[in-house]
């Protein structure tokens, strides 16, 4: 049962984290990878760096996000900024709806 719980947590976190990432990007219009990680940490949503970047890469390739390289004149090195595409905004809206439904159902089951 211990192993199943870990597996369940992994599975549920996967979908939940994607939702949180897209929500964060939507809220701030555009964010770069390291910034996303720091903001997730602030909400106690630790994510392995080596998992985030491949995920952002996939979401860019499937059209959920768009990415632009920018070089900050102060900090110096280039960063890749992500923002939601129109398609991404629709996907996010659906995900948020689904999540709210699931939360409501769970509340009713709990009663």
């Amino acid at each position, binding site marked *: 049962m211990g192993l199943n719980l870990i597996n369940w947590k992994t599975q549920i976190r996967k979908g939940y984290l994607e939702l949180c990432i897209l929500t964060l990007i939507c809220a701030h219009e555009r964010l*770069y990878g*390291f910034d996303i990680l720091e903001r997730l940490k602030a909400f106690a949503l630790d994510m392995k760096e080596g998992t985030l*970047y*491949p995920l952002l890469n*996939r979401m860019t390739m499937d059209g959920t996000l768009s990415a632009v390289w920018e070089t900050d004149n102060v900090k110096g*090195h280039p*960063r*890749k900024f992500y923002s939601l595409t129109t398609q991404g905004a629709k996907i996010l809206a659906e995900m948020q709806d689904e999540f709210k439904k699931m939360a409501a159902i769970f509340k009713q089951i709990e009663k």
Partner: protein
Amino acid sequence: MGTTNRLEAYLSRMEKLLGPISPSEKAEIIMEIKSHVMDAQAQDQSQSIDSVLKSLGEPEFVANRYLLERGLKPKKFPKHPILKWLVIGFLGTFGIIVFFVSFVIWKFTPLVKVDKDNKHISILGGTIDVHGDFDKNFEESLDDFNIAIHSARVGEDEKLVKGLAVLGPEVTQLAVHFSHGKLEVKNSGTRELSWDCVINKDAKEPSSTQEGPLYTFDARPSVGSNCELSIPAELKMLLEGQNGKIEIHEPHNAIDASLENGKISFKPDGAVDYRFNTSVKMGATDDFTSSSNPQAYPINLSLLRGKIGND
């Protein structure tokens, strides 16, 4: 390894592991990871590069995540690659040993055969033959044993004939004759002439005679002989055969060699000068470089049909 080197090594490894992804996409991925590392170090300058890279994960892990997210098959990496190569090395060596032992057993069966009635022990399929009185005490009987060690080139219908002669200072010429077979001649570095001939079991053995300054080794009665001769330096040599092969290795002698049919091979000693005169009636001859040194050894090689080679 400095910070930059460690980071470059990490990124280089990761780039290799991204395999099927296009070069431009790989370049972007590497740039983004590098940007992350710089942000991490800028945020906490006390953090070491190793700590940042550890937080990212092994290059294999990160590369595989990129591949998985694209629906590509991630590479499998052995947990202990060194162990894998050690096992392969051990199995390979073991395999070679097994092959070698199997070959020896097959080639030299029976390994040991004792024939008490005829007082004969045959070892390694007859390669070593021991004849003698086995009942005697070992130290007493050692001299009584005749041990014949057969060369691997001795076939079932053949026998090995060995001989040795110490040539006195009066001997200045050596003549070697054979009819059919092979004659191999090399320098003994001493005044000893020795021979090692494989001849037919029923054939007459070669003979050797001396007449004044001329020493003659005659293998003509041993038709089909295969003789290896070690000859003293400075003797004038006459080598004569009908059919087969004459091989001359790095001589320090004047030589007149003639053969009717076959091949004469001459391998020179790089430290010695020779003056060549080669003649082939029907066939070919390789190039030989003659020296203008008047002290050079004259080498006359004559062949009716065949080839004179410098290998």
